[in-house]
């Protein structure tokens, strides 16, 4: 379909969202990501039964931590769709992009940049 979406999103492919760990999400923020979203299969359709449910819990855990340390829990989110839903994939990409633009950059980037300089 070749539908376009923002180039600001970097895709990290995993065999199943069940592979995504809270540590992966946190490390992404540590390295300067402004937001992280996990796109899994539809709930109930996981090839490995529970992978996407596990991912959702880990996203929630990351949300709690990010909120507690002042980075903002809304920067992380879980979406579900099936593999043939390209338009929905793009819709979620836009939604996330919009959300992160509203929230602004990851607050740790500024101190990090200052330190580097």
């Amino acid at each position: 379909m070749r539908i376009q979406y923002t180039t600001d999103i970097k895709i990290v492919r995993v065999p199943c969202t069940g592979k995504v760990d809270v540590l992966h999400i946190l490390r992404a923020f540590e390295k300067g990501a402004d937001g992280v979203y996990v796109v899994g299969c539809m709930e109930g359709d996981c090839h490995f039964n529970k992978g996407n449910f596990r991912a959702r819990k880990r996203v929630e855990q990351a949300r709690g931590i990010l909120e507690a340390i002042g980075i903002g829990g809304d920067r992380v989110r879980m979406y579900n769709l099936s593999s043939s839903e390209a338009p929905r994939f793009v819709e979620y990409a836009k939604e996330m992009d919009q959300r992160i633009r509203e929230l602004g950059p990851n607050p740790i980037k500024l101190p990090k940049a200052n330190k580097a300089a």
Partner: protein
Amino acid sequence: MIVADKKPIEEIIAEVKNFTKILLLGCNECVTVCEAGGKKEVGVLASALRMYFLNQGKTVTIDEVTLERQCDHEYLEEIRDRIDMYEAVVSLACGVGVQFMAEKYQATPVLPGVNTCFLGATEKRGLWTERCQACGQCILASTGGICPISRCAKRIMNGPCGGSTKGKCEISKDLDCAWQLIIDRLKALGRLEDYEKIYSIKDWSTDRAGGPRKVEREDVQE
């Protein structure tokens, strides 16, 4: 195993916020199994603390080490050559590990990274329940293998009390009545007549009541 639970991250931040060189020290034993203080949890906490301090505009070193155990000298010795690099250690071991660290490294503040809860078992992932209060004089032989001291809310030795309803404890519908379990088990063992034996007044001197306890075994001492 010793079951611990995570401390809220806000509480840990309050403990460490004035330090600039911090070691997060995990433990590979019980707290790893109950997913509160192993290598993984050390990693998550380290990442969170690094971001917290960056966001505060502070330059803080957060290092991660996970030892085989924190309740044995030999493993704690592994960090002797680097302990002086840190202003504080957050130990994610149980209360035993935290204290053993503190005793060994007198000049370094050692802060607890978990809440130590009880001696228990993994019923399923994410659910740990109490089984033992380490009273020092095991009575399980007479109670069908179910401990009323750790599992009855009133640690009643001759139960159940009048609050036992439909197999549940008076304090919560989610909590099994230990004495119901004991009776069920005695029945399964064909020993229900044992129920009528009165358990006489317990000697609690081997419990916490007798003061800090020790087990000393000359046969295995060097």
